[in-house]
């Protein structure tokens, strides 16, 4: 036997076993295999995981705490991090900067002072905090000694924008998940009732959904959140805002659930279950729900961005989360008009995080949609 022949045979056998694997794989395995091939969706997934990781460990990753205020550096631009000194690669360092009064505009300008050099150290001791809210420690991922570092600059009160963006991601990123969870519960229950029982119930629920969909969301949310007292604690505001966002959010999910249920309840296995004496609840939860779970995940992923954007928009307008709380929308309040954006462009940095997150969720949802139906060719 020639080498070539053996090679060919081996390939055939392997191809065979691969096919076998496909036949034996569970639905979720097939979905994963198909999803893996969607390059953009995979990248998006990793970026999102990274963002959520940063949100969880934000105290560790940020050089300053959320209450930190620099006494002298208001509206400082992002600190430049240098890698080369005299043409040689050295440990990353920053220069200290001096405040200078521009005599023409009467505004303070920051100038790098190349005589002072502060190297960046990793795992430095800084302000104490509790990791995950449990373990007290004071180690931060990076930091400088003698001179503060502001990777994204500071705001008008001298607070580090980088640290605040990290802290803000907690509210901004979690509100999407919590909001979608509430919408999901509402959507699945109401959509389930609508699709399973049909008839008048279905008709009424469908009309309500049509009504809610025809309401322009932002004005409606604005009016609703306006009725919240300003002095509520952060947690309470957070949950009520999430609820407000979910009021419209559930409609889309309810529609998906209903549509799928309507087609699935005509299937033979539903009839079989009913003949076997299964209760309605059991039929829905055990037989119908798993058969369209993948479609649900797609709709859920695609509805997270609108929640995140809703919170950002409301907070941006000053109607959502209120200042001691930090979210990307709250941070963007400083960038509301053209003059502040033109003078302090780094205030727009949180906007890029919002866009990145939303873009990633959209790509992820797109990839999931392609993968959701692994049997479709």
């Amino acid at each position, binding site marked *: 036997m020639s080498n070539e022949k053996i090679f060919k045979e081996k390939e055939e056998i392997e191809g065979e076993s691969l096919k076998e694997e496909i036949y034996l794989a569970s639905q979720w395995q097939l979905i994963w295999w198909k999803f893996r091939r969607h390059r953009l969706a995979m990248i998006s997934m990793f970026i999102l995981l990274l963002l959520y990781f940063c949100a969880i460990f934000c105290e560790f990753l940020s050089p300053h705490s959320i209450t930190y205020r620099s006494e002298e550096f208001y509206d400082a631009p992002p600190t430049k991090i240098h890698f080369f000194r005299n043409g040689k690669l050295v440990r990353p360092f920053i220069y200290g900067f001096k405040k200078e009064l521009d005599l023409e505009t009467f505004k303070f300008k920051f100038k790098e002072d190349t005589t002072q050099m502060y190297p960046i150290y990793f795992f430095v001791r800084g302000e104490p905090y509790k990791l995950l809210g449990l373990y007290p420690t004071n180690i931060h991922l990076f930091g400088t000694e003698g001179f503060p570092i502001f990777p994204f600059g500071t705001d008008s009160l001298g607070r580090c924008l980088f640290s605040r963006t990290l802290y803000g991601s907690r509210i901004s990123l979690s509100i999407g998940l919590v909001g979608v969870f509430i919408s999901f519960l509402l959507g699945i229950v109401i959509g389930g009732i609508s699709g399973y029982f049909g008839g008048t119930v279905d008709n009424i629920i469908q*009309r309500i959904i*049509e*009504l809610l*969909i*025809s*309401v*322009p*969301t*932002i*004005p*409606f949310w*604005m*009016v*609703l*959140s*306006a*009725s919240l*007292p300003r002095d509520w604690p952060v947690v309470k505001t957070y949950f009520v805002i999430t609820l407000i966002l979910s009021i419209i959010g559930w409609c889309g999910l309810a529609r998906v659930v209903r549509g799928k249920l309507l087609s699935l309840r005509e299937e033979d296995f539903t009839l079989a279950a009913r003949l076997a004496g299964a209760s309605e609840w059991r039929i829905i939860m055990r037989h119908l729900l798993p058969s369209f779970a993948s479609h649900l995940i797609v709709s859920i992923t695609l509805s997270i*961005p609108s929640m995140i*954007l809703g919170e*950002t*928009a409301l907070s*941006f*307008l*000053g*109607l959502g989360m209120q200042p001691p709380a930090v979210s990307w929308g709250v941070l*963007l309040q400083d*960038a*509301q*008009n*053209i003059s502040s*954006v*033109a003078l302090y*462009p780094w205030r*727009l940095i949180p*906007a890029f995080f*919002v*866009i990145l997150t*939303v*873009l990633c969720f*959209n*790509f992820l949802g797109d990839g999931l949609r392609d993968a959701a139906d692994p049997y479709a060719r």
Partner: protein
Amino acid sequence: MLYFIMRRILFIIPLLLIISIITFVVIQLPPGDFLTTLITRYKLSGIELAENEVERLKEMYGLDKPLYIQYFKWVRNMIFYGDFGRSFEWNRAVSDILRERIPLTVTISLITVIFTWVVAIPIGIYSALHQYSTFDYLFTFLGFIGLSVPGFLLALILMWFLYTYLGFKVGGLFSPQFLTAPWSILKLIDLLKHIWFPIIIIGMSGTAGLIRTMRGNLLDELRKQYVITARAKGLPEKRLIFKYPVRIAINPLISTIGWTLPGIFSGETLVSIVLNIQTVGPVLLKAVMAQDMFLAGSIVMILSFLTVVGTLISDILLAWADPRIRYGGVGGE
């Protein structure tokens, strides 16, 4: 056809009724009524209102009556007298403020819808006919950006970009000297100079969505057999595509007007606030901040009403364009 239109119009009456109830509930939501706000305001300025004075005010505004009577009164005034209540923030009738702002909102929204269509349909057709070409990829990519980046952030970023790199200032709808001037040709020209920016921003996400739908629809149609038949019979390619598949692919788009309208009104509200345009957006924000609920509620009510009417028009258009819908039951419903 007439029967269809009548039925649709009858159908929106209960819809409007429910919207009005929701709005009324929202107006009542904040703790205390607007009289309490008024009293606190007087107190802040040092005027103490006597007990009987408060009672008189209560009676004057009908606040001593039960809620449902207040509701009926509110609806009655709205329908028969066009009276939406009074804004105490502006100290003017709500209807006056609305009359100033609504026309501009409607104009901008309408132009945005037209802009969306004019841009999206040709691009959609091009993308479908040249699937996987460079431009197709480019448009798909731009479409994703357009769908993901919310208008108000886009407005901010573009404003910053245009200002710092090209040195011109966008925002507002009129140059300062025309802001309070009466309408004239010059003011109109000035308006045209400014209006393109908000329209592109507001229309961005709608355009992106429409391009994707149009492309998908047309691709589906192009694969159908009648296209092959027509081509086999020797119909010129241009005529073939524009006379049949394109017309069919546009049909479902008409029905999406109803869905895009709420988005346009939403986006318009936010973008107007950022760009400082004299539409209802900034007024709504101000009203909401001051808990001026009659004004805020009325704006939401009007915007919802406009959306419902827009959806109605799109339904009628669709029925006119597609006889299957007119006579009920599409396919095997």
